[in-house]
């Protein structure tokens, strides 16, 4: 049995080193002379957060919330559900907690612990967006974009309502860099919605098939260090299409023997 899932992408956002949003990314793409910024994103605005929450929340939460806010834009987010996916979670926070536990376990910070849950960004987003809708937080490994997209597409299908997908990972810290390397901060968000015939804009068509996925790289070869450096940057080829690049077919692994075949195109 082969099910085809459809969605329109009605909003998108991005936060990456040196590039604060999709418009900045579009400018960068248009200028072949510019080199790719690397490392950490300086200071994600996350302006939707209440100042007290924003102060306590770590950089990983700011990054995810900033891109989520960009994708939702001026729409009312109050009943939009969301799937947040991060391969490695908040690596600097995990490194700090593990370091404290090894040295002086009684000194674990309650704020750090509260933010160590993988759904910290989802929880903060529900507050910032005043949304009581269902929110999930997934971790599906370095190739998590396939399962995360599939989960979000299933929500769109089941609810016939928009669904926010946020992919984010932050640069590694401490000894964790040995095994879960992540060289740059990167977050991307897509607001998916049921397809309406004749509506212009980017569209997805997905199927689950048996087989092994092939590697898909961004069109712009300059993006390769992000693409290989951060699991969330698997979304880059989709963002290129949102910004007008030609249609493409992708295959992303879902498990050891299945893949998500995705056709993405921009309907003028």
């Amino acid at each position, binding site marked *: 049995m082969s099910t085809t899932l459809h969605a329109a992408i009605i909003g998108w956002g991005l936060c990456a080193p040196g590039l604060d949003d999709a418009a900045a990314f579009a400018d960068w793409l248009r200028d072949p002379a510019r080199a790719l910024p690397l490392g950490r994103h300086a200071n994600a605005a996350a302006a939707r957060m209440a100042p007290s929450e924003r102060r306590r929340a770590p950089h990983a939460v700011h990054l995810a919330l900033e891109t989520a806010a960009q994708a939702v834009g001026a729409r009312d987010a109050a009943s939009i559900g969301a799937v947040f996916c991060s391969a490695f979670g908040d690596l600097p926070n995990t490194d700090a907690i*593990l370091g404290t536990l090894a040295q002086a376990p009684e000194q674990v910070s309650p704020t750090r612990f509260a933010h160590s849950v993988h*759904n*910290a960004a989802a929880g903060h987003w529900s507050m910032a967006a005043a949304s009581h809708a269902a929110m999930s937080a997934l971790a599906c490994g370095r190739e998590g974009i396939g399962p995360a997209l599939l989960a979000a597409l*299933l929500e769109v299908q089941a609810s016939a*309502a928009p669904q926010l997908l946020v992919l984010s990972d932050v640069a590694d810290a*401490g000894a964790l860099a040995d*095994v879960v390397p992540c060289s740059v901060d990167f977050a991307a968000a897509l607001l998916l919605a049921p397809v309406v015939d004749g509506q212009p804009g980017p569209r997805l068509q997905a199927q689950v098939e048996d087989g092994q996925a092939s590697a898909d790289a961004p069109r712009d070869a300059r993006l390769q260090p992000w693409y290989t450096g951060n699991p969330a940057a698997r979304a880059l080829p989709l963002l290129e299409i949102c910004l007008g690049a030609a249609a493409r077919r992708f295959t992303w692994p879902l*498990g050891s023997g299945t893949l998500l075949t995705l056709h993405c195109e921009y309907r003028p």
Partner: protein
Amino acid sequence: MATSVRRSRARWTLRGTGWTGAEQCIHDRQQDGSFQGSLYFRALADDLAVPSTPVAIAAYTAVSALGAGRAAHVAALRAGRSGLRRNDYAPNGPPLPCWIGRVDDRSLRPAPGLDTRLHRLLILALAQDGFSALLTRALSDCGATRVALVLGTSTANIETSEQAYRRLDHGHLPRDLADARVYHLHGPAEWLCAHTGIAGPAFTVSTACSASAKAFGLGARLLHAGIADAVLVAGADSLCSSTLYGFNALQLVDAAPCRPFDVQRAGLSIGEGAALALLRRIADAPAAPRLLACGESSDAHHLSAPHPEGLGATRALQAALRECALPAHAFDYINLHGTASRQNDAAEAALVAQALPGISASSTKGATGHTLGAAGALEAVLTLLALHEGVAPATVGCASPEPAIAAQLLRTPQPRALRRALSFSFGFGGSNACLALARADAA
């Protein structure tokens, strides 16, 4: 119930277009330009009363402080026994003065491939009640790529990460623990797929203490969409220093065994466990109990405290009732989240008294401890056992119940026939889930 499902579907398939009501609504709104209006989304969310088909829970089992497998859990539920013990989990320094729900170490065997405490718990669970054999049969009947895995966990293999950080070598991980699956949340799912032969889509849901309840929702959607023909839903969390010291730092750990819904309660007892359920379509397991619904919501209130009036939890309940098109009084038992924290139990007691009056309810965390990411699946298994065995579990540890819920809170096990039950799971981040479960003859 069948009648109401049909009526509701008819309402939502309009004008012979073959569209659902929601699709028609989007089309109409597109025409008049109000597609992105908030009222539209809100109306849509409220009106999406499309009941989804229940799925069968073809096999289920668990390991926890109460023992390994269904028989051990049934015996403990019937006796109203607690599995909590004085904390003897202390890998680094003196043990925190509290009580824990620990799986008997003598029952744990090394896990092939990657030996961690969490994987040992999963192996022990797979070995119970013929679960491994039933999974193998599903893999051969459906094909390995048609079997999916949804694992709910909050801490994954962090117990082993903690070991590694205690013996860092000049800031680097010890060589024997340099396996990436120890350090990222999807590691246990990758290991479990390799161990069982599951080759279909694999997901790790990590929404703190609602994780493995929400895993049932995703599992059902995979079956409904035809993505998989069988789904292994697993919930697993092991004891670790992160959660013991972390909850301690938040002043949420009781020095005594936890006392859910007791007026004197002073926090939780951390537990560990692994629970497994094999979801199938009903035609493939017609005699099996059913997952009728998984209602989900967000509090939008606070990262580590529940909404004081249980607003988010109420929405999860409403979503579950809408999904299965049943009224609250169709359920005759509620397995409460009941962590024994001051705030959770106060909010949950108020919610249950208001929205589910008169229905027998209990928290089983005084028996198992709070198994965090495993709690949703573990309590689903306990609830299924309650339905199957005809025993409503006790709220072990509660001597003087909160007045709001005293009339319906079970303090001793009650043998009686149960047909349908609800199970609540709430997590940090304001993440709520409500499972609706039923015997096959009551679905």
